[in-house]
């Protein structure tokens, strides 16, 4: 217990170092091209390889190629939500202002990949399983994740005082983390129509390496792309905040007033 305040203080110092918007803008501007271009390159390589050059599956045929989009989106749906939860923890415990903005920007991107995951899964399910949708544990828990994202998007923007929105949305996001292990282990805990994971930490992947490589490239590309979009949105959001503060500052108001005095009075 003795080391606790020291540890918390040091953690807080590390987090607040990057809470400085100016420091984040400089870091983000340098980071952006290193995220965007590798993301485009890897995604195009992975998808091109997967969609055109990888072998067809012995029983699924060419339908298996949906996997090269579906699996990266599914992985990002969960890990994007995990990032949202980390931001929410920083927001609730350390009152980290940049984490608030990050949570607001991760939500729509995460919801989009979850929607793509559900849509591609449905398109894959029809020819293979014989149905667009079933209420098995895996499909249902991912649908719940989609609704959690939608709820977060709505809640974080629902208050006139943004701080209250950040608090409420952070609580929602942290409560929703309960869904993440349910998604991951649903295919092991219960009988589901969805098959178990092919890639695990303990066993050799039950996937031929000629399919695994394009999938890995595609997943890495999608992940970098997710990060690139979130960083770009976050930079825009920080700059937007700055512009708003500048416009609201007394100096700026005085300047505008002196330029167009008559207009200011009518507004």
């Amino acid at each position: 217990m003795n080391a606790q305040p020291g540890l918390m203080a040091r953690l807080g110092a590390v987090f607040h170092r990057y809470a400085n918007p100016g420091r984040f803008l400089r870091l983000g501007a340098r980071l952006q091209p290193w995220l965007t271009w590798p993301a485009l390159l890897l995604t195009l390589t992975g998808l091109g390889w997967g969609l055109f050059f990888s072998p067809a599956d012995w029983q699924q045929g060419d339908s298996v190629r949906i996997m090269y989009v579906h699996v990266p989106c599914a992985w990002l749906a969960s890990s994007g939500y995990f990032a949202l939860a980390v931001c929410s923890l920083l927001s609730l415990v350390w009152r980290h202002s940049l984490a608030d903005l990050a949570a607001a920007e991760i939500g729509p991107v995460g919801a989009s990949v979850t929607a793509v995951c559900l849509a591609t899964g449905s398109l894959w399910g029809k020819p293979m399983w014989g149905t667009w949708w079933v209420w098995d544990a895996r499909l249902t828990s991912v649908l719940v994740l989609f609704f959690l994202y939608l709820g977060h998007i709505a809640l974080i923007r629902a208050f006139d005082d943004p701080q209250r929105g950040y608090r409420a949305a952070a609580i929602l996001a942290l409560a929703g983390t309960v869904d993440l292990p349910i998604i991951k282990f649903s295919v092991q805990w219960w009988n589901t129509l969805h098959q178990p994971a092919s890639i695990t930490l303990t066993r050799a992947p039950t996937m031929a390496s000629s399919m695994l490589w394009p999938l890995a490239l595609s997943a890495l590309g999608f992940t970098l792309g997710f990060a690139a979009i979130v960083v770009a949105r976050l930079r825009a959001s920080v700059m937007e905040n700055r512009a708003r503060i500048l416009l609201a500052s007394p100096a700026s108001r005085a300047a505008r007033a002196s330029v167009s005095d008559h207009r200011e009075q009518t507004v």
Partner: protein
Amino acid sequence: MKRKTRRLWLVVACVAGLGTAAGLTLNAFSSNIVFFMTPSQVAAHPPAPDHTVRLGGMVVAGSVRRELHGETPVNRFDVTDGQAAVTVRYEGILPDLFREGQSVVAVGTAAAGGGFTASEVLAKHDETYMPKEVAEALQKSGKWDPKFGPPPDASSWSSMTARDGRTARGGS
């Protein structure tokens, strides 16, 4: 700093409490969350004849019989989980992935005599992904017959390429 520590523990306690509650709820309802019953479960606790259930298992090799009644195909096949088997009757077109040795989920009602009438048959594919040539090579070499269950351990074939498959085919 003290307030931050307190907030951290509060969040940890809330998430732990919520997680426990969710875990207990799911555990209590776990029989309702399973997507299908296995043949041995159906044999042990036969559902009411008017109750729609899902029956899941592997299609027994050599058990599939197809007849044409006018225009509609009528399929009969046995579904097993290794301990019990149930004969399923299904009128209609089976999904593309349906084959002997495949896992399927049949939606329908269990008759009192032990048969099962399905209104819908879904194919369940496993977590194995391999090119056609590799699957053929494994079958040629006698390491795997898809009719009798899942393929051998992935480490024995995951690095095989389509070319390995072609040489195995040419050699035999």
